[in-house]
């Protein structure tokens, strides 16, 4: 009895605390605003002074970056900028990818976003609609010569309603077909050529599928894929298909998209030239091709770096276009940028832009760019160095041609959730059930549509 009484009291107090907590939260912004104002007023003071005496004022500005493996290289860029701007100190911080977003969100909640930070294509719509990214269109109009940049991927970082840019790409990637040249030679199949079709691809894949001793255990598959965005969307676009409606507010796979999905499924279950995804469980997805388990693979060009490392001298490989589907009139490449954004409350937006402009321009040479990503500044991308002639693939220049075909993407607010980007649920989970032979395409598509639109309705009621 006594415990019951105590628990009753506990719950009553909990509710009391909850309601007080409510009041507390309601008060919180007000209190925080004052502190924020203090900071703001201090900083706007410095900003004012900066305008009066731009050269002498000491300014510290924070810059967050998400890739620790690239820390040293990025530090070189940061140091160069500070050398050119002696009054500026860049507080440069690198946070491991898994925790980068958590930290940014916590800082955003505390109204303490860094001035400049990396922004991914998958999240940019969300951050723009939250009003957290500074509108940089005026700077872009003033300082950027469109002829010098790959403007095709700029659409990804635009506010969908105003068309203004809220982040500036520093590099971008395209999905491509990686193929094992040694395996092609062994099977006596010609290398993929520009404009090759699904039929030609299937013929090649059949020849490249090797089952030694006919024991049912395939030693080398012709191709391999699963429900991952880079694996799927690439094929949809190459059949002139669309997964979203016109204004990208709803999931609505059109006939061409469905045709692409069912072609992919037939590779597994009809032609046996690709494994069910679950067969590859336990091997990192980016290792299947380098380990020689599949002779072809479609994924982002940034894998060039990992391929070099894992394949080593094991075999010769190259990159090629993704084959065209029956409905495709021309090529549509799937590509997106990695960008830098300015926090909406950054007290030094001019300086922040100057920094971004520096970090994304001619100073970022090939040796300071992640292998397989294309620098957004085209004179650098078109330089001899970009081809990295001493390393594989020997046709790296193909990336630049392919980039001219860059078409739409499926990025929306809530993309990560409906696409199943990190959790393998949503679109990815449903379509993987089809590829694993556990569900049929029609059911999966209706589930995906319902789930994805449930997510999208939260943003576009």
């Amino acid at each position: 009895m006594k415990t019951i009484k105590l628990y009753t009291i506990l719950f009553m107090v909990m509710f009391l605390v909850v309601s007080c907590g409510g009041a507390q939260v309601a008060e919180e912004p007000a209190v925080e605003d004052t502190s924020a104002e203090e900071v703001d007023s201090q900083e706007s003071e410095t900003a004012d002074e900066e305008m009066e005496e731009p050269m002498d004022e000491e300014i510290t500005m924070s810059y967050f970056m998400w890739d620790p493996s690239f820390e040293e290289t990025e530090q070189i860029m940061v140091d160069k900028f500070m050398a050119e701007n002696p009054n500026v100190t860049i507080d440069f911080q690198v946070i491991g990818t898994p925790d980068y977003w958590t930290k940014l969100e916590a800082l955003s909640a505390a109204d303490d976003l860094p001035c400049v930070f990396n922004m991914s294509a998958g999240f940019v719509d969300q951050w723009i609609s939250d009003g957290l990214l500074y509108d940089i269109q005026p700077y872009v109009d003033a300082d950027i010569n469109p002829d010098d940049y790959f403007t095709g991927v700029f659409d990804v970082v635009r506010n969908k309603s105003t068309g203004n840019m809220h982040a500036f790409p520093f590099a971008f990637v395209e999905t491509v077909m990686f193929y094992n040249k040694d395996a092609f030679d062994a099977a006596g199949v010609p290398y993929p050529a520009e404009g090759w079709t699904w039929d030609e691809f299937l013929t090649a894949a059949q020849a490249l599928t090797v089952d030694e001793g006919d024991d049912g255990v395939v030693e080398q598959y012709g191709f391999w894929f699963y429900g991952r965005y880079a694996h799927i969307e690439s094929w949809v676009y190459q059949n002139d298909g669309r997964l979203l409606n016109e204004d990208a507010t709803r999931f609505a796979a059109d006939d061409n998209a469905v045709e692409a999905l069912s072609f992919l499924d037939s590779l597994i279950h009809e032609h046996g030239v690709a494994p069910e995804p679950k067969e590859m469980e336990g091997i990192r997805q980016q290792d299947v091709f380098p380990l020689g388990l599949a002779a072809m693979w479609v994924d982002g060009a940034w894998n060039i770096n990992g391929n070099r490392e894992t394949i080593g001298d094991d075999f010769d490989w190259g990159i090629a276009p993704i084959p065209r589907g029956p409905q495709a009139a021309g090529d549509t490449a799937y590509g997106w940028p990695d960008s830098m954004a300015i926090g909406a409350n950054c007290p030094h937006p001019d300086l922040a832009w100057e920094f971004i402009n520096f970090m994304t321009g001619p100073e970022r040479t090939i040796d300071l760019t992640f292998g397989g990503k294309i620098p957004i500044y085209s004179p650098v991308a078109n330089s001899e160095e970009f081809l990295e002639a001493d390393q594989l693939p020997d046709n790296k220049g193909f990336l630049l041609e392919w980039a001219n075909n860059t078409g739409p993407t499926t990025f929306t607010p809530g993309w990560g959730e409906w696409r199943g980007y990190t959790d393998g649920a949503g679109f990815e989970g449903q379509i993987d059930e089809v590829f694993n032979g556990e569900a049929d395409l029609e059911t999966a598509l209706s589930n995906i549509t319902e789930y994805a639109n449930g997510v999208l309705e939260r943003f576009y009621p």
Partner: protein
Amino acid sequence: MRHGKITPYLFILPTIIGVFVFRLGPTAVAAYASFTRWNVRTPPEFLALGNYIELINNETFWLVFRNTLLFTAIFVPGVMIISLLMAMMVNQKLPGIAFFRGLYFLPYITAMVAVAMVWRWIFATRFGVLNYVLTNFFMVADPPAWLADKTWALPSLAIVAIWKQVGFQMLIFLAGLQGIPATLYEAAAIDGASKTKQFFNITLPLLSPITFFIFIITVIDAFKTFEVTFAMTGGGPNNASTTLAFYIYQNAFTFGRMGYASALAMFLMLIVGAATFISFRLKDRLVDYAL
């Protein structure tokens, strides 16, 4: 024991201050957040019961809840039995026993990312150690794709979680076993009680307060397990291995739905709170304090 009126309050004061400021404060905010739409980045927007209504009508949530119960049903007995067994094994006076005590504790202190990498290899479909053993020594023709299999993913995770966790419970059991006076066993041995009898008549009853404590924290652990899922399957395939704590993490940080995540957390608190409450009520009947 007799004591001054305010003495107990002085003893609990530091802890109570800490709990109020650093735990209950944030918990209260989370409770409030459960009635809002909050993406963390921007201020919350009041929704009243919206999150709770969504939760009840959400199929994924019920799937996740079922997964959590299944996980708990494997995890709690697994951890309790194995850790007690291990504690009794390393509580023997044998040469080199300290070495084993150390080995048994290794999984608990090793970083999850590292552990996950190894276990993913063990469970791998084609080149995994487990399937290699199954096909070559037990003649299983078509072994499952463990972590990619809708039926097996969750039990596989539970096994890894048990493996990772038992060292911790073992340590507490060990401390408990040390508290049992050796004279009791000596007396029982003189009376001719077998080892089994000694276990049921001395060890279990005298260990019951500790066992109760371990049971409660193991249940809480089971409901809060997140790291294993995060590192091994990410909740896949298609949510088959998503448990409540992982689902909360996803909603809070990947989906930007802190409000909904908070509602889920309140639900979790209610369930675990109820389980704890029932356990405490049963405790008086099952637990022997040697007072």
